[in-house]
């Protein structure tokens, strides 16, 4: 097993004259041995950023650093420390073993060693005994595993993955996501993982960078980015709630109380009274109870009267948008709970959630206070 190298990009610019698309990334870094997911919709520049970081494409400006050293596309030694897996496996004509062996030949590995490394790499991705099969006769999942083995066999210090599971059916995707996460953890390499699927990103990665129109608009740990999206667009892209803006009114018993739109919400955080904050509540953490009924014993500090203003199915659950005072929050409700409570649009309910379920961060001076919370304030 090899150890990962950090990879970073600084001031990366790349413009495509025909489409007019421009990559413009101030700074991005995947720390050594970590998994950085680059999330974003189609056409946001994720793949371009990956090819630039992978030294497969020359940027118009900016610096790529590998292990702290500035490197360029002409630096073949640096390129050899990395390997990539793309959305489509792009297996070469020939046998599975010839495919997995391809990079080893480029790396000058002796023939005797190549065979054993190919066998080990195929075993690692669960394809023992596939050596002599034609690469073009494999199923989609097998082909993507071969593509991963072809990269892993090189023992790269940095692995670049460009939507490696996007072309697979949902069942296979779920299984391979788990497999990929475990293989990547065991490999100990630094991984840059491009995807437009946040569920895939959450299983696999440590940090997330969200891209829009060639720029990184949000970066942080999965919890940071998902719990309290940077703005309304990021929230909507991630399927999370848009952040609300409020002000800390008091600090009591280790809790902070945030005043917002005529209500007060208890949260946990290290914020001074008077400080403006952004906060968000995960829909999955909000419980609904029928209004006027006695509540079961609960330690949840937030018990707020609310009205259901929208109720829509989301797979196996319902998403209820609630008007709480002047703010809107969402709750995820099971189908059976909706039935039992007779929940309808217009129902009066009690929204209950713990102080620890509220994600809070102080509002930075540079942030446009009113814009960030536009949807929440209403």
């Amino acid at each position, binding site marked *: 097993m090899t150890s990962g190298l950090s990879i970073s990009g600084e001031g990366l610019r790349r413009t495509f004259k025909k489409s007019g698309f421009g990559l413009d990334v101030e700074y991005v870094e995947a720390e050594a041995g970590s998994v950085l997911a680059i999330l974003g919709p189609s056409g946001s520049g994720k793949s371009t950023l990956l*090819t630039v970081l*992978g030294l*497969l494409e020359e940027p118009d400006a900016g610096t790529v650093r590998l292990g702290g050293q500035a490197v360029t596309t002409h630096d*073949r030694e640096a*390129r*050899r420390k*990395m*390997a*990539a897996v*793309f959305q*489509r496996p*792009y297996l*070469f*004509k*020939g046998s599975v073993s010839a495919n997995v062996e*391809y*990079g080893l*030949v*480029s*790396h000058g590995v002796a023939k005797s060693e190549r065979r054993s490394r190919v066998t080990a790499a195929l075993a690692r991705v669960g394809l023992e005994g596939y050596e*002599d*099969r*034609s690469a*073009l*006769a*494999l199923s989609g999942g097998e082909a993507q595993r071969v593509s991963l083995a*072809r*990269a892993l066999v*090189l023992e790269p210090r940095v692995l*670049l993955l460009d939507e490696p599971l996007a072309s697979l059916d949902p069942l296979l995707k779920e299984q391979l996501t788990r497999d990929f996460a475990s293989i990547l953890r065991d490999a100990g390499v630094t991984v840059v993982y491009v995807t437009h699927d946040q569920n895939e990103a959450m299983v696999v990665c440590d940090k997330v960078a969200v891209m829009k129109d060639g720029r990184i608009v949000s970066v942080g740990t999965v919890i940071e980015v998902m719990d309290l999206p940077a703005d309304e667009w990021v929230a909507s892209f991630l399927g999370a709630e848009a952040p609300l803006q409020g002000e800390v009114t008091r600090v009591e018993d280790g809790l902070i109380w945030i005043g917002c739109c005529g209500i007060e919400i208890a949260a946990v955080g290290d914020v001074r009274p008077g400080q403006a904050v952004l906060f968000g509540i995960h829909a999955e953490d909000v419980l609904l109870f029928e209004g006027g009924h006695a509540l079961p014993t609960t330690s949840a500090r937030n018990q707020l009267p609310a009205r259901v203003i929208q109720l829509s199915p989301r797979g196996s659950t319902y998403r209820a948008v609630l008007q709480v005072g002047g703010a809107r929050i969402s709750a995820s409700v099971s189908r059976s709970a909706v039935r039992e409570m007779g929940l309808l649009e217009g129902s009066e309910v009690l929204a209950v959630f713990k102080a620890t379920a509220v994600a809070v961060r102080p509002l930075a001076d540079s942030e446009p206070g009113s814009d960030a919370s536009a949807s929440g304030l209403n």
Partner: protein
Amino acid sequence: MQIFVDAFREGWAALTSGGIIDVWTIVITSLRVSVFAVMVALVIGIPVGLVVGTKRFIGWRAALIIFNSGMGLPPVVVGLLVAMTLSRRGPLGFLDLLYSQNAIVIAQVIISVPIVMAITAASVASVPRELRLQARSLGASSMRVSLLTLSEARMGLLAAVAGGFGAIISEVGAATMVGGNIAGQTRVMTTAMVQYTRMGRYGYALSLAIVLMTIVIGVNVIITSMQTSAEKWEAEGR
């Protein structure tokens, strides 16, 4: 119909027991010249076709138009230009190549290079750019990426070989103009067939026609079987 029977009898005798003409000397000359010419055409045409098919540069469109037009280049025009170039008063007259096998090779290379280039360019252009990017991402040098691209386009390359060889082994105009159809030296199958037909020696012409058709069909059978067996293996796995 008797004319066909008589011609076949005479031709068969020429092929099996020899006769006034040495059919096999003509066949060997033909093969030697055309195989050498197609090899030179492949050495020139494949790399140029690879560049045109995979890279974009200033004048790329013009280059593609020239190669595609070159596929329809009339052999007699090539023959005329090569004959003038190699004639005593021509710019390369000092080489004294006119009416030699080398002159035929030069003309045949000029005829087949555009065919090889155009078919190679079209074949490698169909290899996805991402596949080359994938190879680069695995640490491959530019040379290995090029070889991989050619290997991925090998069905098309076999077509380029067949197309290039087919165009020159059956070509007659340029071979006559720059070779001169000299017995034992520059007489190839097609030029000999023209001459014997003119002389009314249909049997000799027919014997050469049989050999020529056998070679053309044989080459295509070999190439097609290489293509289909490779495709079958790729599709079926083991």
